[in-house]
């Protein structure tokens, strides 16, 4: 039934515009079949509620107006009427059954786990998303790219304030993409309204969802489950492109991953590492350890003037690579590449008065990881 008629019914009832993006105050129709089915369900139940509301509130306000004490209304004394009561129990039941049927059909469609063309693993981390194209050797982390200065108001806010990332998830249209979702720390929830996908990512467990996008475009969403301090700063951006464009993007990504891997072998200059490290620090570390490394003790220790950090490079590297068990510090061994780890460690060791002068080379990091 591809459920077009629900959509049409809703549209005709709502007489609203059928554009894909949200009109700003209603649920978006979205760009998948599932999302438009859901929109149809939403509008249908909404109008059912409106009709019931008009009838009930109509009767109520009529009574309030008609039987005013001040106008000398005399109270009747009836207090039950079984057939009326049976009737107003039966009618809602029928309405609900009528509603349950299409809802069940849509839900079954959403749970259809038949073969997908592409598998993407989505991992929630405090507070970023990691995307892995399974079997393609392409994986990256997607951080919010809105600068902290916009949040604090020092700079004018951009059009996509809080809903922009450094690397969007790129997906092909017209192909069934299966999402496998999990988390590294707490429960997050990956949500893009236009795709009608919202699914919790649960540490240690895997959830599944799928999407087949009909139109190319940029679709934005956010983490929907409270996951700590930066829950509000964990956007999702999906870039849906034509299939050929997706293929060439994927090939490009593979190539650049190889190039980055080669960068591991060469000797890096300190200035180069510090520059790279600062951008990594600001996008990944500053949400907890703060922009100036002052931290937010006791949960997030300061890095500036941290005795242990200054005195012990190996300890420092170990914490960044392997994380701290039972604390918020994640292991970055697989989320950052050796170049990034070396850069951020070098930067941290030489910023905010931590003038150790240490330079950590990517090759050293790679060696530790590969050990």
């Amino acid at each position: 039934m591809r459920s077009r008629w629900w959509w049409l019914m809703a549209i005709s009832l709502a007489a609203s515009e059928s554009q894909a993006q949200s009109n700003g105050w209603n649920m978006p129709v979205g760009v998948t079949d599932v999302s438009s089915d859901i929109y149809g369900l939403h509008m249908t139940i909404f109008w059912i509620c409106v009709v019931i509301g008009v009838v009930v509130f109509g009767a109520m306000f009529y009574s309030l107006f008609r039987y005013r004490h001040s106008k000398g209304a005399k109270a009747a004394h009836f207090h039950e009427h079984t057939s009326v009561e049976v009737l107003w129990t039966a009618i809602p039941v029928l309405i609900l059954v009528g509603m349950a049927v299409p809802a069940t059909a849509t839900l079954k469609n959403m749970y259809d786990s038949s073969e997908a063309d592409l598998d993407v693993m989505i991992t929630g981390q405090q507070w970023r998303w990691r995307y892995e194209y399974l079997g393609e050797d392409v994986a990256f982390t997607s951080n919010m790219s809105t600068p902290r200065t916009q949040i604090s108001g020092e700079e004018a806010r951009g059009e996509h304030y809080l809903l922009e990332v450094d690397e969007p998830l790129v997906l092909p249209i017209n192909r069934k993409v299966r999402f496998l979702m999990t988390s590294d720390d707490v429960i997050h929830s990956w949500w893009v309204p236009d795709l009608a996908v919202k699914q919790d990512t649960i540490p240690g467990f895997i959830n599944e969802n799928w999407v087949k996008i009909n139109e190319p475009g940029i679709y934005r969403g956010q983490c929907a489950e409270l996951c700590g301090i930066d829950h509000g700063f964990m956007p999702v951006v999906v870039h849906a492109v034509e299939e050929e464009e997706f293929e060439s993007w994927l090939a490009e990504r593979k190539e650049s991953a190889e190039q980055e891997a080669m960068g591991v072998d060469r000797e890096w200059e300190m200035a180069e590492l510090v520059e790279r490290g600062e951008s990594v620090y600001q996008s990944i570390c500053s949400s907890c350890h703060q922009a100036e490394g002052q931290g937010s003790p006791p949960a997030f220790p300061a890095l500036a003037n941290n005795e242990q950090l200054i005195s012990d490079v190996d300890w420092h590297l170990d914490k960044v690579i392997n994380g701290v068990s039972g604390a918020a510090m994640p292991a970055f061994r697989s989320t950052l590449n050796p170049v990034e780890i070396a850069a951020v460690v070098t930067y941290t060791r030489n910023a905010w008065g931590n003038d150790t002068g240490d330079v950590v080379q990517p090759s050293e990091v790679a060696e530790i990881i590969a050990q």
Partner: protein
Amino acid sequence: MDDQEQAKVGVRRTVIRTVAVLVGMFGFAFALVPLYDVFCQVTGLNGKVDATAQSIVHEEVDESRYINVQFITRGSPGLPWQMSVEMRQMSVHPGQMAEVDFTFTNNSSSESWGRAVPSVSPSTATTHLRKISCFCFQEQQLQGNERLTIPLVFQLARDLPDDINTITLVYTLYPIEHVVQNAALDNTLKSSANSELVNDPKGNLSNTPKNNKAAGEAI
């Protein structure tokens, strides 16, 4: 006054009954924990896999269906291990037995303990997945820089629902601090029941009919 006496007796009776219900409900909350596990295993809810070995069921292999089984391994903070799998995915027939090797590497120079926690998606497949041998049944111990390869031996039941054609097995490595026994109370019981497996993870594989090994191909 007779009424008041009666009320007093009534109050006492009511209080005793409500307190009994209270205690019962408090116990019920805790009973829900194992009940939930049982419920999950019966229904496959949440992709929670039975943490004990099952035996092979000799049933006819359904050659008409290929099921794509994917393996995903994940590390976690605080455990300097790497876990890898010999192939990312394999195709198996329902009823066929399959084996795949997982390799654990301790990257640090000191001994540590870890546990691979399994999860299956879609969860409806869980009850149709029989694990004959799995490293996930117990904790693993790795000496400094040790590398250990352990196979996962499993079978998909023939009655696997028709609408399932891809199954994803995910293993997440978690550290175990061995100073404190970091396991749920019922888990300590479970793992002691499996103590033989701990000593010889490959032990019960000796009688595995090798010719039945899946036509698993690395893809």
